[in-house]
């Protein structure tokens, strides 16, 4: 038995962004950048580690909306074009940097090499099917994939039991479709927990979820082992709570690894630096400058102005990831040793959840770092074993029962990010739609014979799910893509209401329905009857 356990959990999620009504759409780039910088590199590294005998073991949540986008033929086709375009630009950069910007040439060579490999993986190895790639990693025992809320809805702020249940059950069904098995665990969106949610998870047989540290620390009674052991809720579902120390080492731009001066600077991008006429063939049709993902500068220092950043040196950065990975693993071993004293010899589990997109997108060298972390963990497995929450539960250790505290992993630890003066206006609309959909479903418990009405009901459910995405309220609060997020929320509420009116009248605008279906085409397996209120048995 090792002295302790380490559980890395990556949360891969993007909101459903798909605009077939436009030939290209800026926000779709989120997906394409993530495929290039995060998902493909992660697949490649995990496969490589496995082949080298390093036995990496980690947990990966791929949210249902992300699954649907990765499996969507239109988005796959658009990504191929995006990748070809980016590679063409990178190859032009080889010549431009060689001639005129020699201090950037090493980085330019790196991008060409990376992107050619990305294209090979995309076309030849995974054949545009990344879901299948992740599934094979799970089937080989390398990763444990867990699910998430169907559209990443913020569950504590969903007003009806039926709508909350639907987020979970639709997610589980979607997981089964993509991964051909039942999920063991779930990533609660934003790690947001409220009393009663565990009962909904238990209903569908989910074994565990991920929570923030104070969900357990402030739970009742006190957690004997703090966040360093899971707890069992009263419904039998287990909660694994986040370790703050490891979080800081990646999330913090001040003391965390990603802030190292050697690492690539996020903000300096040739999309802003290179001549506009040179870039024009590679930009969207609107000709607007944007991040293209080719960046030639390093962080250099915390207080260094963007204009003074020094050239990025790939080899130096790669070497740094080795040092940081070694440090990370050594710190975990020391942490385990310290904790063992406080835990009376009980082997702790250190749970480290992160957004997957941090590794490779924000922190460009992040995937390299993970590769080295797992290499070192393999060498030190007698002292600290890399496990998934499912692995830990399979050890059948005694686990304390507790009532968890209301919590989330968001700023200040509760619901402020998703419910505040800037976005509270959303909830009356969302809640009214939730109640209305259950009322519609209840009045049509038996599927209608009119197929149009059936389709309209299913599509109304999709619109509600899309409106419930916590990403919109989040983006409004963060003041990042406020216009887009607001427009999306309003669009889905409008579409829902229009469909609901049609259903109530019994007259469906077929052309409009078909257009809505064409655009918001996620969860084709969805059945509106999931929103029916459960009827009590006779005598109850």
């Amino acid at each position, binding site marked *: 038995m090792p002295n302790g356990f380490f559980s890395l959990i990556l949360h891969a999620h993007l909101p459903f962004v798909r605009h077939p009504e436009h030939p290209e759409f800026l926000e779709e780039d989120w997906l394409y950048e993530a495929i290039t910088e995060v998902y493909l590199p992660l697949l490649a590294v995990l496969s490589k580690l496995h082949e080298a005998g390093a036995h990496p073991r980690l947990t990966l949540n791929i949210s249902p909306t992300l699954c649907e986008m990765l499996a969507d033929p239109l988005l796959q086709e658009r990504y191929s074009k995006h990748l070809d375009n980016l590679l063409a630009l990178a190859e032009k950069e080889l010549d431009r940097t060689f001639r005129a910007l020699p201090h950037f040439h090493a980085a330019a060579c790196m991008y060409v090499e990376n992107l050619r490999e990305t294209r090979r993986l995309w076309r030849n190895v995974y054949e545009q099917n990344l879901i299948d790639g992740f599934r094979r990693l799970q089937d080989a025992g390398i990763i444990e994939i867990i699910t998430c809320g169907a559209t990443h809805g913020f569950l504590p702020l969903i007003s009806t039991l039926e709508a909350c249940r639907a987020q979970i059950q639709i997610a589980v069904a979607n997981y089964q479709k993509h991964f051909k098995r039942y999920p063991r665990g779930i990533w609660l969106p934003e790690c947001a927990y409220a009393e009663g949610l565990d009962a909904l998870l238990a209903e569908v047989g989910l074994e565990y979820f991920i929570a923030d540290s104070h969900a357990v620390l402030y739970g009742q009674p006190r957690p*004997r082992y703090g966040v360093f052991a899971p707890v069992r809720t009263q419904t039998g579902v287990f909660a694994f709570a986040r370790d*703050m120390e490891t979080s800081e080492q990646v*999330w913090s731009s001040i003391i965390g690894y990603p802030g190292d001066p050697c690492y690539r600077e996020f903000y300096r991008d040739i999309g802003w630096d290179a001549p506009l006429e040179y870039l024009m063939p590679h930009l969207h049709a609107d000709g607007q400058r944007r991040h293209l993902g080719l960046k030639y500068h390093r962080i250099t220092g915390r207080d260094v102005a963007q204009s003074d950043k020094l050239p990025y040196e790939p080899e130096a950065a790669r070497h740094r990831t080795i040092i940081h990975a070694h440090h990370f693993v050594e710190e975990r071993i020391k942490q385990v040793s310290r904790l063992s004293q406080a835990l009376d010899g009980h082997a702790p589990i250190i749970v480290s959840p992160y957004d997957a997109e941090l590794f490779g997108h924000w922190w460009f060298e992040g995937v390299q770092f993970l590769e080295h972390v797992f290499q070192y963990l393999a060498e030190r497995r007698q002292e600290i074993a890399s496990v998934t929450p499912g692995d830990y539960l399979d050890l059948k250790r005694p686990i304390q029962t507790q009532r968890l505290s209301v919590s989330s992993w968001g700023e200040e630890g509760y619901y402020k990010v998703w419910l505040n003066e800037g976005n509270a206006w959303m*909830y009356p609309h969302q809640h009214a739609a939730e109640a209305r959909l259950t009322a519609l479903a209840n009045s049509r418990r038996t599927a209608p014979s009119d197929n149009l009405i059936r389709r309209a009901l299913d599509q109304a459910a999709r619109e509600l799910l899309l409106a419930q995405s916590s990403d919109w309220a989040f983006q409004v609060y963060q003041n990042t893509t406020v216009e887009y997020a607001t427009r999306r929320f309003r669009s889905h509420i409008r579409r829902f209401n229009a469909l609901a009116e049609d259903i109530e009248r019994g007259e469906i605008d077929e052309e409009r329905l078909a257009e809505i279906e064409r655009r918001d085409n996620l969860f084709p397996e969805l059945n509106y009857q999931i929103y029916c209120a459960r009827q009590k048995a006779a005598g109850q």
Partner: protein
Amino acid sequence: MSLHISDESIPSSTAATALRPSTPDKLDDLLSPDEPLPPPRAARDDIHLLIQSPYRLFLYWSHARDPYETLRRALGEAAAQYQLIIRLFDVDNGEARSHPASMDHTWWFDVAPAHGYRAEVGFFAEGKPFVHLLSSEVTRTPAISVAPESDVEPEFQDHAEGFAHLLNETGYAKDALTVALEAVDDSDTETNTRTLAHSLEGSDAPALEDADLPELRSLVAALALGENPAQARAHLSHRLARWLDSVLNEHGGEVDASRLLESLREMFGFELEYDETFVLTKNINRVSSFTWGASDVRQPSRSVRVWMPSMTLGRPDKWLPSMDMSRAREWMPSMSVGQRLHIARWRHLSDL
């Protein structure tokens, strides 16, 4: 059949909707953010009291019909005396507060942690019975500290000193200090939290009961870590609020955190160590503010570690049942062990 969804309210069955020739989008739903959604259709009266945090609740409500119209039909001219108000009840202490109902049917309440609340909407007139319209479910705000109770299952029972150490390792310094004080009180020594409280309070301080001790410890820990007394007072029970008032009166309206820390050091041998880089927390470039898809993950607002005499590299041979001042002084020189642990954990990457 039109594919256009009107940017006015939901199209009625008889209203014709027009295509916008300038808009190529069939659904025409890429509307200006300036065009808000129409108010949601209220099929029935409804009320929601939502948690934002341990300190704030959000209320909104809706009426299927105009409540004033309903009141007028019931009371006639007498209805003019009434005003629509919202009330919030603290179901734990019975306190209530009222506000005129806002036109947009929303309200934000400042509340206390670990309390249950219920909101009501109704008509109020001086000297008349309240006309009750809507009542919410009870919403409980979360606690902001560790539970005072250990598990009754022997296998999962903790001892306060060990649990304080664990909280310290987790980065929860205030809770670690609170539970460290509990450990002192558990050890049955003469010098304990009550002793500390007596040294701080004025002559008008209320007598504190045993049931007040958990809250007192938490308050002392908060003040020692620099929490604003006015902010702390807003969430205290009556008795602790009066106690804090006596302390403030005794010390010129302030609590000197450094003097309080000195008292903790002298009485119990506690030390607090800060990593000053976290003073810059507010200036941290939060990933979520510039990277799509990045969660806005909370971080400790300040890196503080509590060092207690029991914290050594190895377990002490025996527990220290009585932490009198002489023992605290004896431990002081070995405080460097704790400091070394702290520095080793929090050293900057430049040391690598």
